[in-house]
């Protein structure tokens, strides 16, 4: 029976492997720390862009060709995407179903957002 023992491989192998794991862990911790530090240049760029356009973009899509909701819910307002029109069901948009990122609530809840009775607003 051939049983491999640690002495066959030698101590340096263990030390080297342990060192590699420690270095990799420290490198991972370092990149996490670097990511947590604020990026001032990016923030300035973002502030200028949003101030110029009055706030544009809230979702994971980079254009309006698929679903306006997933580009910016402020643009779509209470108008459901075409597929929801056809199916007469909320959340029927396939882009919502496929996206793993936050999307605005669908059409039926929108009347709750902006439609308050004028009297209630004055209170």
């Amino acid at each position, binding site marked *: 029976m051939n049983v491999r023992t640690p002495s066959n491989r030698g101590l340096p192998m*263990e030390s080297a492997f342990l060192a590699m794991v420690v270095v990799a862990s420290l490198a991972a911790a370092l990149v996490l720390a670097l990511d947590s530090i604020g990026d001032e240049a990016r923030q300035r760029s973002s502030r200028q862009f949003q*101030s110029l356009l*009055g*706030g544009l973009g809230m979702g*994971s899509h*980079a254009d309006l060709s698929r679903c306006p909701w997933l580009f910016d819910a402020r643009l779509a307002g209470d108008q459901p995407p075409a597929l929801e029109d056809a199916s007469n069901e909320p959340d029927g948009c396939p882009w919502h179903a496929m996206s793993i990122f936050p999307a605005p609530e669908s059409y039926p809840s929108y009347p709750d*957002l902006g439609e308050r009775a004028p009297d209630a*607003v004055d209170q």
Partner: protein
Amino acid sequence: MVWLEIGRTGLTALLLHPWRSVATTACVVAVLAPYLTGLGISGGLSRQAEESLRFGADLYVTGRQFGRGVPLPLDAVEKIAAIAGVAEVVPRIVGPIVLGRERHSAVVVGVAPGKMWDVSDCIEGRLFRDGGANELVVGSALAARLKLKVGSRLPPFYRNRRGERVSEVVGIFTPDAPLWQANLICASFDTAATLFDQQGLATEVLVYCRVGEREHVAGSIRRQVEWTDDGGRRLGARVNSRDDFESLWASAAMHRDGVFHLHCVLACSVAVLAVFVTSGFGSSERRREVGILKAIGWQTDEILLRGTVESLLLTLAGASLSVLLVWGWLRAFNGYGIASLFLPGLDARPGVDVPFRLVPVPVLLSAMLSWVVVTSGSLYATWRTATTAPVEAMR
């Protein structure tokens, strides 16, 4: 110290079965890397969306007809500006357009000239001028796709009853500007109206309110801003407030993040089975190894400690590699090839900096979860062998 020595044998065990260790680490990376990618992009996107809400307008006013959103006539600007508590009113046009033979999708945004904007950090070149017709600022991804530079001229890409003109690219958004600049064509309000051949209308009006006046202004707009023409057609105003979108975003983020985490938990449960197979279930050499240790006097708990330390080191290696791999791919290579899977509208080589932010706490939790996965997969097999008689184990 005895326990330390026993734990050290876990490191030895890793090196005794290198291929098994590599396979287990690969399982950890295969499960953790996609999860961290989604987590990182989601975090970056959330941050940009929060900035979009924070630096945007206080109120977004659109027209309303048949209970649905429609563009507003431009005289809404004067009506809204006259309401007490309003600091500024800016009409805006936003709409999709298609360019070129390959029909590239773009978003046209037209903003009315007003105050002087400092855009030196987000635009390479300059902003369009007040009276400058058909001066465009183009998004970085769109510019890369159409091979546009500052000073490039675009042949007419729209239809207008009054005729079409050549457009000039006076600026290009920098890649580190938010994601939504990628396919943007930003122009003056009049130019945007010309591109869509729609005069006297705005898709929405942005309202900036004085401090504490937002609710009052919103209510006044709903009550006072409406039109009825001679034919009896009535157009109302619909108002959405920034607060509404902020709460909407927060609740949607929690819901979607929960769904994402649930999918990852399912993937981890499959990974347990994968690790179970690679950990030595049926591996005769490992069984003999444990049998020998039992024969020379090792107890079951000592063997399990050895296995736990082995799992911990494998997890540490796998989790660290995953973080470095994901960070390198998304930062150094800007998500080449995968960004378009998460962010529709971008190319395989995104022309925009992929929004990405890895927060330590979820990463640590996912590393702990992967340790549970690896331990669950390997510890059972080890325990089964450790509780078997040494003679049987060494067969």
